[in-house]
């Protein structure tokens, strides 16, 4: 085969024409055949015709060839595109590895923001989004009474429950249960504190759950002794070692035997995760005419196709009927139907929104910082990019390359972010109050991790896109000539810093408001001395302490033993524990005073039954009269005490001491008021002191007050934890079957009540401090870069006579402009958004000027401090060498 002349090959090079090529190729075929035929003896014209005929449809063949070339070319391009991306990724990895410090900085910065966001998203996902673990949970509702006093979550009376259930058509089923409460498990091993809920058999049908072992209780179980129950999966595993033979065993709860029918499935946590046991509450035990004991929670499942609004309308109508039928009980009562999920999450929705806002702001700050780092790096690389451009890489190709680098960083950041989230989530769960609804649902799951990856990619590409676009438009000539690219990046960088400062300010203001609110709470006067007070709660079973003398005997012995305990200053007891937000309340009549209520009694107030020495041990001042003491026992004249708030409210100018009150009604029996004590914030620190009554524990067996709390005063500075262990031993000595429900210092008990607020403060504070640090680092980085870029200009200024002070002032004023811009934007955003915090704040305005000013000042000082170092470096620039560069 001989070679084609050189020029022809190059002609093709300049004028690619595939169609002509194909034609030429096929024409050659035909001509060769014709030549052969001529050799065989045909005349040239006939040979040409025959060859053409033999060849077949040349035009069709050419179209086919062209089509094949087109199809195959696109296929090949696609394959090559993937190969290119592989190349981009390799190149990106090399570029990342070349500057590991930069990559690590970007990754850590983004990881902090992503980690915080991921942790909070796990909470959002677990608490707000994940459906409740019941069958078709979106059709479950809680039905409450709506009291004339305006409480739309009032528990329901058995009479109303029975009538609602019988008359409703929009609910296919209804069930009811009592509020969970503590019982003591005895018999096998240590006495244990368990939480039970007494539920009607229909409750489980409404929820649509089936047991993982055994069976549920049904209405027919009431025909036996009715003492049947099902236990939680967790209790089955921890207390009974997941013994499959547990069924039909007996549990002794508060001295009563109960038969285990089944084990509920894992994760069944109704109404909350604290409940271990569900006991049969037979509906036949309800009194249909009882409309006074409002103590049932009612659950309903609405009919397929019915809406909550329709259910509400129907229940309204039914309740209106009931009001007409039973006016003496039902006057002004209404009904409230709420979707179960919304009702569960309602108390924490604002907390979660606050945390999500905080995490998002932190992510914004992190993105700003990462953006600046990427921009700085991109500018440093503009020569490299320009060289690539000159070598033929198109703008699209360069942008893609830079974006792939961003994606590689995004993946690294996502990985590191998940690690951060893991740690943050553990801290969050450790801090979270136990009563946070759906706490058990919070975890890092694939859904959340998917979000993390998406957010990582979106945020990294967003912050990486701007530098990439700018670089792709870099003027090749000027970039190759010098390393500076002018002022265009300056504005972008400045914008990022302003954004960071603004976001940090918003978070710092939020955290500052919470801290300020805490400070106010810390200085609240409790009205007693919570420091050094140890509270021990237990439950005295009625079975073994059936009557007043038996109980009194136990209390007396306990108080005596505790009082003589080494290191204990004083000991007493009360029906209520400090920090208990729902103390029992009682209405009462006052002799000689007319109540506005038809019952003749005044509105209910908390009543504490207390042991002798209560007020002195607690440190509650006695204002008038005498305190309850050892005289007030058994058949001695019945007495009571009031606090100042109650005295002011009901006696105003008169002296309550010497007047008489009665709990049963205006007919007595009467209790003589013997003294007035100071007000206390017994329930919660952030609630105003309530009007309160005190009666002697040892005088009357209070049927409704079954919780007891021993209160022990320790001398100042003694660590209560050591005493706690010996108190535990002492109680066991007195009664080995008695479980201690709770043992804590009074301060801890309040802390529990404040856990939600503390969670918000700690997390938001943590986010804010992280944001502040990132923001300061970001500002420092930007100022350093700016000074480096302006080196020449600064050199010229200095050569022209600018002093060091002038240069310092110039750099600082540039930083100051950015900081001020950030503070201005941040203040506006903060003022508009701190309303979110209102429910978390205590006596602190969401636009508290002091907090705003302090945070702005802090940012200004920290920001200028960060700018000082680069500013001083600017003053050391040698004018001559700077100009020569």
């Amino acid at each position, binding site marked *: *085969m*001989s*070679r*084609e002349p050189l020029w*022809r*090959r190059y002609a*093709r090079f300049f004028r690619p024409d595939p169609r002509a*090529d*194909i034609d*030429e*190729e*096929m024409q*050659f*075929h035909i*001509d*060769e*055949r014709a*030549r052969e035929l001529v050799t065989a003896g045909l005349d040239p014209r006939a040979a040409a015709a025959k060859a053409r005929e*033999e*060849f*077949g*449809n*040349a035009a*069709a*063949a*050419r179209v*086919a*060839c062209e089509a*094949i*070339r087109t199809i*195959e*070319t696109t296929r*090949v391009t696609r394959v090559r595109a993937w190969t290119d991306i592989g190349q981009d990724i390799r190149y990106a990895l090399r570029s990342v590895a070349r500057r590991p410090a930069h990559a690590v900085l970007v990754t850590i910065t983004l990881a902090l923001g992503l980690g915080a966001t991921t942790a909070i998203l796990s909470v959002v996902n677990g608490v707000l989004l994940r459906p409740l673990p019941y069958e078709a949970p979106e059709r479950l509702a809680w039905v409450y009474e709506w009291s004339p006093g305006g409480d739309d979550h009032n528990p329901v009376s058995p009479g109303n429950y029975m009538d609602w259930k019988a008359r409703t058509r929009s609910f296919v089923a209804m069930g009811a249960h009592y509020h969970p409460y503590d019982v003591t498990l005895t018999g096998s091993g240590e006495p244990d504190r368990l939480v039970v809920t007494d539920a009607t058999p229909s409750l489980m049908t409404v929820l649509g759950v089936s047991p993982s072992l055994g069976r549920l209780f049904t209405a027919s179980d009431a025909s036996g002794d009715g003492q049947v129950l099902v236990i939680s999966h967790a209790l089955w595993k921890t207390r009974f070692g997941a013994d499959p033979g547990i069924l039909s065993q007996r549990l002794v709860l508060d001295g009563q035997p109960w038969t285990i029918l089944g084990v509920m499935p894992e994760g069944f946590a109704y109404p909350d995760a604290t409940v271990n046991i569900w006991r049969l509450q037979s509906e036949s035990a309800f009194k249909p005419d009882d409309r006074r004991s409002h103590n049932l929670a009612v659950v309903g499942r609405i009919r397929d196709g019915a809406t909550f609004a329709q259910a509400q309308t129907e229940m309204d109508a039914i309740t209106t009927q009931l009001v007409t039928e039973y006016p003496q009980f039902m006057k002004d009562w209404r009904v409230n139907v709420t979707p179960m999920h919304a009702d569960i999450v309602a108390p924490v929705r604002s907390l979660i929104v606050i945390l999500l806002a905080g995490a998002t702001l932190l992510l914004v700050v992190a993105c700003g910082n990462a953006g600046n780092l990427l921009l700085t790096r991109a500018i440093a690389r503009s020569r490299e990019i320009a060289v690539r451009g000159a070598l033929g890489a198109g703008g699209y190709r360069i942008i893609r390359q830079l974006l792939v680098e961003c994606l590689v960083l995004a993946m690294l950041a996502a990985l590191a972010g998940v690690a951060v989230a893991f740690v943050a989530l553990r801290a969050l769960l450790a801090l979270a109050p136990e009563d946070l609804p759906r706490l058990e649902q919070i975890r890092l799951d694939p859904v959340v991790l998917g979000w993390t990856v998406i957010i990582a990619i979106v945020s990294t590409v967003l912050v990486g896109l701007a530098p990439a676009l700018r670089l792709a438009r870099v003027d090749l000539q000027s970039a190759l000539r010098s390393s500076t690219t002018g002022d265009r990046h300056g504005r972008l960088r400045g914008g990022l810093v302003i954004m960071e400062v603004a976001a940090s300010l918003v978070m710092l203001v939020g955290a500052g408001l919470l801290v300020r609110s805490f400070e106010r709470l810390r200085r609240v006067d409790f009205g007693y001395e919570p420091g050094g007070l140890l509270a021990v709660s237990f439950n005295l079973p009625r079975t073994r302490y059936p009557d007043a003398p038996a109980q009194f005997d136990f209390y007396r012995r306990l108080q005596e033993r505790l009082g003589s305990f080494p290191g204990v200053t004083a000991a007493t007891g009360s029906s209520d524990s400090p920090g208990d937000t729902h103390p029992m309340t009682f209405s009462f009549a006052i002799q000689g005073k007319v109540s506005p209520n038809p019952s003749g009694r005044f509105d209910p107030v908390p009543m504490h039954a207390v042991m002798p020495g209560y007020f002195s041990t607690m440190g509650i001042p006695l204002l008038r009269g005498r305190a309850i003491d050892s005289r007030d026992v058994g058949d001695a004249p019945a007495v009571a005490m009031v606090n100042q708030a109650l005295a002011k409210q009901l006696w105003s100018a008169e002296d309550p001491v010497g007047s008489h009150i009665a709990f049963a009604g205006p007919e007595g029996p009467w209790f003589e008021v013997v003294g007035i004590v100071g007000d206390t914030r017994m329930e919660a620190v952030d609630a105003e002191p309530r009007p309160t009554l005190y009666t002697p524990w040892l005088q009357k067996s209070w049927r409704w007050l079954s919780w007891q709390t021993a209160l022990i005063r320790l001398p100042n500075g003694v660590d209560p934890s050591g005493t706690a262990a010996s108190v535990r031993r002492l109680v066991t000595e007195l009664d080995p079957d008695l479980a201690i429900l709770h043992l804590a210092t009074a301060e801890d008990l309040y802390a529990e009540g404040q856990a939600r607020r503390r969670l918000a403060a700690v997390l938001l504070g943590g986010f804010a401090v992280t944001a502040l640090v990132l923001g300061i680092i970001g500002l420092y980085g930007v100022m350093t870069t700016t000074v480096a870029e302006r080196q020449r200009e600064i050199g010229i200024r200095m050569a022209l006579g600018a002093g060091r002070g002038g240069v310092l002032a110039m750099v600082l004023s540039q930083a100051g402009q950015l900081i001020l811009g950030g503070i201005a934007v941040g203040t506006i955003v903060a003022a508009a958004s701190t309303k979110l915090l209102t429910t978390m704040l205590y006596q602190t305005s969401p636009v508290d000027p002091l907090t705003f000013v302090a945070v702005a000042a802090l940012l200004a000082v920290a920001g200028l401090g960060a700018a000082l170092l680069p500013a001083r470096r600017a003053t050391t620039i040698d004018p001559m060498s700077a100009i020569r560069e």
Partner: protein
Amino acid sequence: MASQPLSVLQGTLDLLVLRALTWDTMHGYAIMRWIRQTADGELEVEDAALYPSLHRLEMRGLIEAEWGLSENNRRARFYKITAAGRRALRAEHESWRRYVKVVARVMESEA
């Protein structure tokens, strides 16, 4: 055997082209001549069908094409099998053998 020459299936022509090119670098006409001679005229291939086949193989990187001059000094497109082409031929040949065997077994089984 049948008196009528057999017409060639689409994929089979690709196989035959690759086989022809293991012999030597050839232009289209030479490839066709080789196939006809080797088949002793028992295969009916339309000349026009050869070219889509050649271009497809080229685009897939199984053969390479280059313009050159023929024996009588005409511009012609010469094809050469690539390493990928040899690999494809080996694989295709193997499956062709199995195909023939299986079809034969089915066709010749007792009715």
